[in-house]
């Protein structure tokens, strides 16, 4: 087992290199350079300022040299500084990760807690009204453009009914509230973005859970268990569910890139200060160091997540052994 983990970790390195090269190449596709954005048409600006910026960004070096410089620094975990505000990329990303983790983590948790039982129940009671209801519900979630749902909910719950805040992480007065009210404030701000984020994922996860459960239920060992006289509960929970969960764990692992990248549009609409919004900003301002940093860190977290999911898979299914 240990050798397997080690091998996987080592494999990450060429993958990360590949990603960094890919990102770097993509960025060269852009016409103009980052110094031009936002500054170019300000007539009050000293013309040498643009040159100074370019020089400090290292944009005047040939491409391979730029990439090489960047690569050297990465080895010491120095991701450089953002073009935008000159702060270290790691610091900027670090500030945003908690917000995205909170949103995505809770979303993942809710998916597990809501979607899996729904899918399992639908499979168990296949073709019943429950099954059909779950199908309809999940299809709706799967097909709806999330940002559209976000806008409608904002309008409904925020402006019309005035029940929930529509943007930001905390209210302005939150700084002065007692801790329990602060938590309540945070949750009320979380509600809408969480709902929108989870709603879309519900469909695929519960569908997957249903399929997986259906497959398991048809297996011989389930029939055997029933024939043995075990109670339904035991059959379902002890045998069927455990096995059905295995591919679901993998699915969760695979949804990590989406979760970590954050939901770009959702975070921007709700002014939720996470990685998704940061990524979107970085793309629009052509902030190369930041984009490279986000790319690498996202990839790293994804690969780690996949590894963990595979390890969990091995733990759950004794038939799987890695060597």
């Amino acid at each position, binding site marked *: 087992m240990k050798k397997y983990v080690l091998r996987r970790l080592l494999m990450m390195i060429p993958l990360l290199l590949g990603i960094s090269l890919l990102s770097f190449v993509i960025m060269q596709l852009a016409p103009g350079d980052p110094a031009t954005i936002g500054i170019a048409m300000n007539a009050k600006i000293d013309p040498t300022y643009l040159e100074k910026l370019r020089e400090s960004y290292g944009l005047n070096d040939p491409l391979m040299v730029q990439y090489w410089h960047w690569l050297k620094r990465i080895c010491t975990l120095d991701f450089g500084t953002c073009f935008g505000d000159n702060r270290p990329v790691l610091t900027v990303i670090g500030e945003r990760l908690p917000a995205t983790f909170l949103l995505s983590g809770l979303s993942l948790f809710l998916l597990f807690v809501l979607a899996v039982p729904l899918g399992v129940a639908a499979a168990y009671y296949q073709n019943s009204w429950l099954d059909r209801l779950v199908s309809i519900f999940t299809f709706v979630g799967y097909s709806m453009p999330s940002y559209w749902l976000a806008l409608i909910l904002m309008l409904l719950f925020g402006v019309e009914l005035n029940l929930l805040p529509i943007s930001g992480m905390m209210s302005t007065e939150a700084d002065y509230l007692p801790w329990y009210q602060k938590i309540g404030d945070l949750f009320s701000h979380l509600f809408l973005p969480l709902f929108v984020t989870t709603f879309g994922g519900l469909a695929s996860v519960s569908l997957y859970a249903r399929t997986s459960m259906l497959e398991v239920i048809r297996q011989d060992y389930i029939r055997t268990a029933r024939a043995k006289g075990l109670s339904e509960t035991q059959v379902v929970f002890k045998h069927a569910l455990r096995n059905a969960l295995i591919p679901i764990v993998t699915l969760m692992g695979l949804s990590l890139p989406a979760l970590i*990248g954050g939901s770009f549009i959702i975070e921007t609409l709700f002014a939720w200060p996470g990685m998704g919004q940061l990524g979107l900003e970085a793309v629009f301002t052509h902030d190369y160091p930041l984009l490279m940093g986000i790319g690498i860190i996202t990839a790293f977290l994804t690969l780690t997540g996949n590894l963990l999911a595979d390890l969990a898979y091995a733990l759950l299914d004794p038939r799987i052994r890695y060597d």
Partner: protein
Amino acid sequence: MMWGVGIIALLVLTALGCQWFAPLDPIQQTLEDRLLAPSFHHWMGTDQYGRDVFSRLLYGSRISLAVGLVAVSIYVFIGTFVGAVAGYYGGLVDALLMRLVDVLLCIPTFFLILMVIAFVGPSIINVMVIIGLTSWTDVARLVRGEVLSLKEREFVQAAKVIGMKDIRIIIKHILPNAMGPILVVATLGIGGAILTESALSFLGLGVQPPTPSWGNMLQEGKDHLTDAWWLVTFPGLAIFITVLGYNLLGEALRDLLDPRLRGSGRHG
């Protein structure tokens, strides 16, 4: 799920024939008629330039259909090619190609598409091509799996013994068996491509105005949530129903092709 088929049929008809169905010119600006509520004259109201929303919606269906079909065609082609080659030849080729797949899978696809479009410049062609170039990984894996399982079968061995060229073997014998799952993935993919295009247009990185696309109609309309609800409601519904149609169709195909999922669970 005949619903799915029905919806799709309606959509294709609309897309192809929108010039005859649309009552008014989708681009003509009649600035005196701005932001009119839905009425007899304008079934879905007008937008902030006085353009008829219903007509724009119809023309937008063309974009959606085009993007869906072209993007998916591109990535099915690429994915099939890569998966078949990797599965059939195995060894180093397989290892390299699968590593490429892994690299692509690490970056959230939408982020990748976003970056490339932002740098290359938005246009409908770019959107179609970029979605095509980045979304082939699922198809590749699928095809690879199918090829791997079929490669050792007798009819393939027999063909090899006869001396049939590899490509012919792949195309004539192996791929047809994989068609089913590929079709399912493709159908579901069309819905996904439409969602992606509308998200890109929503961000201003997709189809550029004045050409109507459901996504950019939403982007132009979101400033008027409180005073012109029709600008946001109808395009959103259009996207929703279209994608729903493709998803229903895809799932129905999946159920059709996978006999394992029929039969009861409870009374085994």
